[in-house]
Structures are given as C-alpha cells and as structure tokens.
C-alpha cells in the first residue's frame, strides 16, 4: 500500500500525540495552541497535495478522492480557526486543562477527517465515535453545573443515536452481506425487491446521522449542549461535526443506496420531508430565544434544514451545493461564534439583552457579528445568499418546487430573529462604554471569516468550481 495516501490522517494523529507529550514535558503551556494551530499546516498541505491523485487506501476502507479532500481541508480550516480564536478563553476558563483541550480538539478533528473519507461501515462508525468521545468530554470541560449537565445529556443521547445507527447498519449488513459501501451498492442494484428490513435499515441509518447533524426531530440535544459547552467547543461542534456528518450522509446514500431507483426516490423524499420539518421548527424555536448561544443553536438547526434541501435534490448539483453551503455556513457561523467568544469573555453573559448598544462599545466586533448574521439570513452580497441559491437551484432542477417554496418562506421568517439581534446591537442603549478587548488570534480568525463571507458572496465561482469538481459521488 502507498502510505502517502493516508498521510493527512497519520500526521494529524502524530500532531495530537505531540501535543499530549509536550503537555507532559513543557512548562510554558502557551506554546500548545501555537504548536496545534501551526502543526495543522502539515496535514493540510499533504491533503491538498493528494488532490490530483485518486485511490483507495487501507484495504479499500478509505477513499482518497476529491470529495474527501474537500471536506478534510474544510475541517482542518475550521479546527485551525477555533484553536486560533480560543487561546485566551482557554487560559481564562480552564488553565490547567490546556493540553487536554487541544489534544481532544485535534483527536476529534482526526475522527471527522476519517469520517469524510471512510467508505466502509465499521470504519465510519468507529471514526464517528472517535470524534464524539472527544466532544462529549470537551462539552463538560467548564465543570460547572450547566456544562456538566450538557455533557451528560450529550453522551446519553449520543449513545442512543449510536445504537440506532448501528442497528440500521446491522440490518443493511444482514441484507447485503458486506460492510463496504460499494459492495452494498452492488448487492442492492442486483436484488431489486422492496423489503421492509432494508427500508428500516436505511431509515435507522438516516436517524443516526440526523442526530449528528441535528435535524428535527433529533435536535433536542443541541440548544442545551450549545449553551452549556465552552463557547469554542460550541463553535467547533456547530460547524465541523455538521460538515463531516453531511460528508458521511452523502457518501452512504449515494454510494450504497444510490440504486435501485425506488430506493433512491424513497430517501430523496425522506430527506425532503426532514428538510421542511427541520427548517420550520428550527426557525420557530429560534424566534423565542433570549440567549445568543441558544439562538445560534436553533438557527443552526434551521440551516441544516436548508442544507437538507440539497440532499433531497439528490443530484450532482445538490452535492456540490451542499459542499459550497457547508463552507459558507462554516465561515459565517464561526465568525458569529468567535465574536460571541470575544464579547462573552468581557461581559460574562450570553444574554441578547446584554448585547445592547454593542456597536458603540466594540464597533468592529458588532459589525463582524452583523455581517455574519446577514450571511446566515441569506441576503446579498454575502455568501449565505449564494449558498441558498445553489442549493435551492439543485432542488428546482429536480422539480421540487414545494421544497424551494418552504425554503424561501423560512428564510424570510429567519430574518426576523437575526435582525432582532442586530437591532439590539446597533440601535439599543449601551449599558457601559467600556471597550471589548480582542487578541491577535481572534482578529485573524474574524478577518478570515469576513473576507470569506464577502468574497464568496461577490465571487462564488472561487469556491463553486472546486465544489463542482469534488462532487464526484456516483451510485
């Protein structure tokens, strides 16, 4: 086997181990975030270097294709931005757990990278657990009442979701006799019978991953976990694990369940219905929130609904649309969360009412948060608009007008609560005029996200061309 095919994963694992060992021997712990963030360049470069190379690694269990590399680059970028922007927060909130924090973030990212590339069900499941185990622990890192409670909730519900997912995988395995996705696809394409056992397996697998991405009705854990977890972990959770979850869903449903035609039609409708329910309920619940982290949690649920529109379209345009949307959503959501990290570090509150007059206290942070919220709403010239456009267009190509109508109506509803936050920040009375300090890491991460949101809004071709090339999954 050619080892360079799995070099991004190998170097990522080595980086995590280096951070763990450095934490043991080095006295000056402030090197840890620098080592972690700079070290991420190695797997990033190695992943990009594999772009023009295709292949299968480790007994065909890992796919080294453009699809996987696109997601690996996205996940590595998100991880780097989270680490960059969180070192001050980490110093303040859990000074003695710095090494563990960075090591767990890196291990979790390793799991997500493997998820994006895995094409065998046992590998998919174990990678999912690798990322989840790290995130369960990170959620409870603050060790106060809320954080502990959210960690416990996350691990219990996550365990149940894993059990459901495994049950679905077992049913599909029992039906096809293989755990390799291409083998499943071949077995299903031959035997065309519409057996209830197979359908139940597909539905259970969909449920397990719907939990991971937080689609309604499997979204109950999100607001509590988002509110209780340390804010950098929330930021990471809200984008990286969703991106990898969608990568796995796309790969399983296109490669394993892409044929026969009736199965394909069935899951297209399944995801379409989930999309409508997810965006509607996410938005309705978001309107009532008074805590910014809970609001972003429910807005994240609604965003998953829009992304699912691309999955329901189930065509190549939908695939590349999902990839573009995920990148755009990650930039905007990370920008919003990083601004929240900076603000809550200073004012010690996540209540939206405490953001009153934030424009006068911290004009730059308030502007960045505003632009990110505009992008999440989907208003031009921000990238969020282009993201919605490509995803909805993919659904239109398949004649799913009802889905697009729901999407557009929901986008308008969503504007209500995004603008509410902006109204408080820009028009509200400032409670004090003390500025909000930010450090170089936060500033760099915010520049990246704002630059990305505006660039991709004005010139989306810069990314859509890569997404189009990378959308290579075929039944």
């Amino acid at each position: 086997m050619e080892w360079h095919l799995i070099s991004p994963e190998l170097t990522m694992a080595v980086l995590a181990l280096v951070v763990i060992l450095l934490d043991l021997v080095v006295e000056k712990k402030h090197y840890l975030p620098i080592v972690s963030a700079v070290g991420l360049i190695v797997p990033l470069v190695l992943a990009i270097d594999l772009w023009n190379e295709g292949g299968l690694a480790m007994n065909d269990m890992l796919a080294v294709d453009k699809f996987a590399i696109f997601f690996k680059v996205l996940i590595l970028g998100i991880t780097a931005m989270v680490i960059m922007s969180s070192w001050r927060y980490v110093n303040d909130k859990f000074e003695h757990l710095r090494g563990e924090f960075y090591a767990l973030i890196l291990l979790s990212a390793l799991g997500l990278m493997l998820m994006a590339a895995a094409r065998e069900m046992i590998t998919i499941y174990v990678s999912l657990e690798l990322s989840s185990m790290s995130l369960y622990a990170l959620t409870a890192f603050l060790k106060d009442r809320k954080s502990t409670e959210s960690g416990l909730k996350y691990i219990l519900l996550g365990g149940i979701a894993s059990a459901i997912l495994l049950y679905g995988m077992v049913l599909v395995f029992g039906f096809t006799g293989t755990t390799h996705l291409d083998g499943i696809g071949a077995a299903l394409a031959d035997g065309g019978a519409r057996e209830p056992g197979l359908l139940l397996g597909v539905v259970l697998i969909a449920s397990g991953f719907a939990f991971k991405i937080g689609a309604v009705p499997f979204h109950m854990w999100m607001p509590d976990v988002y509110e209780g977890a340390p804010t950098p972990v929330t930021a990471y959770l809200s984008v990286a694990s969703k991106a990898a979850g969608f990568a796995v869903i796309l790969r399983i449903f296109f490669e394993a369940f892409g044929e026969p035609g009736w199965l394909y039609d069935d899951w297209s409708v399944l995801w379409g219905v989930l999309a409508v329910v997810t965006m509607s309920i996410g938005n309705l619940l978001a309107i009532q929130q008074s805590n910014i982290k809970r609001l972003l949690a429910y807005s994240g649920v609604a965003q998953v609904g829009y992304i699912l529109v691309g999955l329901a379209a189930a065509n190549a345009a939908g695939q590349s649309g999902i990839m573009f949307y995920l990148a755009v959503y990650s930039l905007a959501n990370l920008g919003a969360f990083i601004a929240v990290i900076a603000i809550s570090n200073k004012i010690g509150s996540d209540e939206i009412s405490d953001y009153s007059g934030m424009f006068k206290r911290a004009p730059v942070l308030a502007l960045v948060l505003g632009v990110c919220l505009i992008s999440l709403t989907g208003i031009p010239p921000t990238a969020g608009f282009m993201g919605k456009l490509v995803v909805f267009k993919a659904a239109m190509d398949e004649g799913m007008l009802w889905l697009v109508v729901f999407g557009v109506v929901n986008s308008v509803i969503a504007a209500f609560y995004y603008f509410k936050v902006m109204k408080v920040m820009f028009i509200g009375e400032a409670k004090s005029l003390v500025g909000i300090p930010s450090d170089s890491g936060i500033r760099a991460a915010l520049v990246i996200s704002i630059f990305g949101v505006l660039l991709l809004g004005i010139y989306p071709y810069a990314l859509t061309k890569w997404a189009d090339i990378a959308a290579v999954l075929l039944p």
Partner: protein
Amino acid sequence: MEQLGTGESVAFWIFAVLGVTAAIGVVAVKNLFRAALLLVFCFFTVAGIYGSLSADFMAVAQVLVYMGAISVLIIFAVMLTRDLRHGNPFNRGWAWALVICAALMGLLVFVFIDTSWPTIEATQVEAVNQVGKDEATTSAIAESIFDKDFGFLLPFEIAAAMILAAVIGAIALVRDK
C-alpha cells in the same frame, strides 16, 4: 433457525428467554444493586447466545469484557453512590415510553417476519458448520483483522485512538480545575 442443530436451538431459546427476562428485570426492579446483578446475568445470556451460534470468540470476549470488567465497574459505581434510598429511578413519562417502545417493537417484529432475508445455501451451511466444529473462530477473526492486505486494521487502529480520547477526557473531567 432450522439451520441450527436441535441442541443449539434449545440452547438459543433458553438463553433468549432468560436474557429478555433479565433485561426487563434491570429496568423494573426497584433495588439498584439487584438491577446491576440482573444486568450482569443479561450479559451472560448474551454470551450464551453467541455460543449457541458457534461464535466462540465472541462468547469468550463477552464473558471477559462484559461479565468481568464492565460488571465490576458498574457494581463499584452502584456501591460508591451515596444516595441509594430512592433506588432505581422511575420516569414519570413511563406510560408514553411504554407506548412508544411497544410500537417500535411491533414495527421491528413485523419487519423481521415480513422480510425475506437472504440466506446462504444449505451446502455452504454444511461447510461453515464443518469449519466451526474443526477449529475455533479466533484465528479466522485475527486473520480478517490483521492480514497482510490490512484487513480491518484501520477501524482497529481508530478504536485505539478513540480509547485514547476517552481516557484523556475522563482524566481531564475528574481532575481539579
């Protein structure tokens, strides 16, 4: 079931009935310590089911890992918990849970009965049974995980990383801030 011998069928049904009874006992018994012991018994019946299906390695692993290690952990945790007066907690939404679980079970039973599961030919069953009688499955499992084409080595290694993450997380959470 007709592919198993009579002895295996009898053993399967004994273990299956005992296992389900023990599992119901785990959630229904008021005394938490007894519930833990019933859980251990449930693990044992699962090992028995593996045995009746000629999965000897799985049966031994089940006994070693679940009955040996995990049951000790659970019983320690129960005994170290200070407030045991309330016993096994009952959920006020149990009626709803019962309805949903019954519906789910009905669905699963329907699916299992209604699906025509693909089965292997009778001659292959003979061959498999022959292998099962001649040698243990352990070496075959080792072969499929660690063979020179990397078998299932990758998930095995990822599981190692997962355990590392779990250990780091557990230590971090019990340490002082």
